[in-house]
């Protein structure tokens, strides 16, 4: 369990991390998401006591990092793959870390085997490719067999096979009851690995929610329609009480309706359809919208207070009709 309380970091006049409070729970993969420069790495460095917070605290199992006797046995971290001495062999790079924390020498060979670096264990790490460097960093995180694992952008530089491997590794580690905290700027990557999601933008907390809730709230599904009788179709859909949006490329998008409903509606009005397809806005788009306007979205500790996604259940503040009306004028 990692607990952050009001964690703040200023670099001169720039606020990198702004009163961040959240908990990372054991047994699940927690994704830490934010665009580049959102303060993810700074937050992780403060968690490991590498950067001193301007204010606020981080506690690992109730203790400050500096109070941990043999930290590698509590928490393993991959910060950046190049945090090794290139002139030293992979084996010796890990050995000196193991010795500092009384980890048995045999464990070095074990973790090298886990990450698949045994054949190059005696090679200098500066000759390693980016993916190999990443694997060496992961090996150093696993070295103390810790309860908490922290990975900063672990898929960077990995090939598809390596990405697949790290995903499965993280899931397996979480299943063993460990706390996994992994940062990324790719929503699509998180959707595949994380169970819980913490989103930050400009150093502020934007969301702290389960992945399932996030997907439910932010993935807008709609039906795309194209017809030579566009005007008639739009009126028919609108009369049926559904929200319709006319896009710039001449298609209609209908929220909250199934393809069956719309197909039957068109048949009823004898309207020719050229396209009738179910669409799903990607989580990537939802994430970009969320982080692009971090001023609009105020920090909240749960997903419950998140602004509702646009759709038929939107509040009745004239949200339904004006949604397509302005676009119609433009079309």
């Amino acid at each position: 369990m990692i607990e952050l309380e009001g964690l703040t970091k200023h670099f001169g006049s720039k606020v990198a991390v702004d009163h961040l409070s959240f908990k990372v729970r054991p047994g699940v993969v927690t994704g830490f998401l934010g665009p580049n420069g959102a303060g993810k790495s700074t937050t992780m460095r403060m968690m490991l006591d590498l950067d001193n917070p301007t204010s606020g605290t981080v506690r690992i199992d109730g203790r400050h990092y500096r109070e941990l006797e043999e930290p590698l046995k509590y928490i393993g971290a991959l910060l950046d793959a190049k945090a090794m001495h290139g002139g030293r062999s992979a084996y010796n790079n890990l050995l000196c870390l193991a010795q500092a924390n009384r980890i048995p020498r045999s464990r070095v060979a074990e973790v090298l085997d886990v990450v698949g670096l045994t054949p190059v264990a005696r090679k200098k790490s500066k000759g390693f490719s980016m993916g190999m460097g990443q694997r060496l960093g992961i090996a150093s995180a696993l070295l103390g067999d810790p309860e908490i694992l922290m990975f900063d952008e672990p898929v960077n530089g990995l090939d598809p096979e390596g990405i697949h491997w790290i995903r499965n590794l993280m899931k397996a580690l979480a299943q063993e009851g460990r706390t996994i905290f992994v940062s990324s700027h790719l929503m699509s990557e998180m959707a595949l690995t994380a169970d819980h999601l913490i989103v930050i933008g400009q150093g502020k907390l934007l969301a702290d929610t389960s992945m399932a809730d996030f997907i439910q709230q932010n993935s807008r599904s709609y039906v795309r329609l194209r017809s030579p009788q566009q005007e008639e179709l739009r009126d028919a859909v609108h009369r049926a009480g559904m929200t319709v949006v006319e896009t710039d490329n001449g298609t209609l998008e209908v929220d909250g309706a199934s393809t069956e409903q719309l197909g039957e509606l068109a048949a009823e009005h004898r309207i020719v359809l050229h396209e009738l397809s179910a669409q799903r806005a990607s989580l990537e788009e939802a994430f970009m919208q969320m982080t692009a306007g971090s001023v609009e979205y105020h920090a909240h500790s749960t997903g419950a207070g998140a602004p509702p996604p646009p759709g038929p259940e939107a509040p009745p503040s004239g949200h339904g009709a004006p949604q397509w009306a302005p676009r119609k004028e433009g079309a």
Partner: protein
Amino acid sequence: MTTPYQQPGSYASPIPVRGASLGDALLSEWTKIRSVRSTMWTLGVMIVLMLGIGLGVAALVSAAGESAGLGDSSALGMGFFGVLPGSICVMTLGVLTIASEYSTGMIRTTLTACPSRGRVLAAKAAVFFLLVLTITTLVAGLVAVIQNAMVEAVEPTGDEWLRASVGVGLYTASLGLLSLAVGAMIRHSAGAITTMIGVMLLPLVAAMFMFSESLQDLQKFLLEWAIPSQLIGIYGEAASGGSSGPLGWEPVWIMLGLSVVALGGAYATMSSRDV
């Protein structure tokens, strides 16, 4: 597929936590210093310089025979000529021991493994100091024995023998420690090495050009207290040409004191700065 330690439920590692001590940090730093090539290079070059120059000088003096004019000084003072360039290698290694961690990013890994800045610095300093002290003492002692055998001069006293070996070893290792502290504060290998070479050579070079009458006191001070002057002072008054600066064991304690103060500064900066 991950580790052989799979357990259901909340995870408990089978590796026991026993509380690492300074001893573990020392072992870790020993692994680090012996597993990089720069250690072998700098110390190897130092040994070659001390032996090569020391024996070369002894051979020249020996060839000159009676006319060498060593007077009442022993042969040991000739060791200085090899130790002086050798100490530059030690300074380089001292800087690299810590600054290379900053340039490679290794320091972040080191400090996550051992968050106590004091322990990391103490372990690095101790391992480096003991390694350099052992090697320079042995090599300087060996050179002294050979020089004494090659050149006909006054038989050195016991204290002279001790200063020419252990004294030189202590002084060189302390100078390296000072470099290590400077490396920790500057965190940049090239910058720290340049700084240390400047500290070593500039006072003498500047003093050479102080022709003005009013600068004579300063010139005298620089000539007698510069690092090379202190180093030759260890060999005694006769070897240093009648200097009134630090002589005998004095330079050793001065440099040791300086390095301890600098390490204090390094600790203060390491504790307060972000990595």
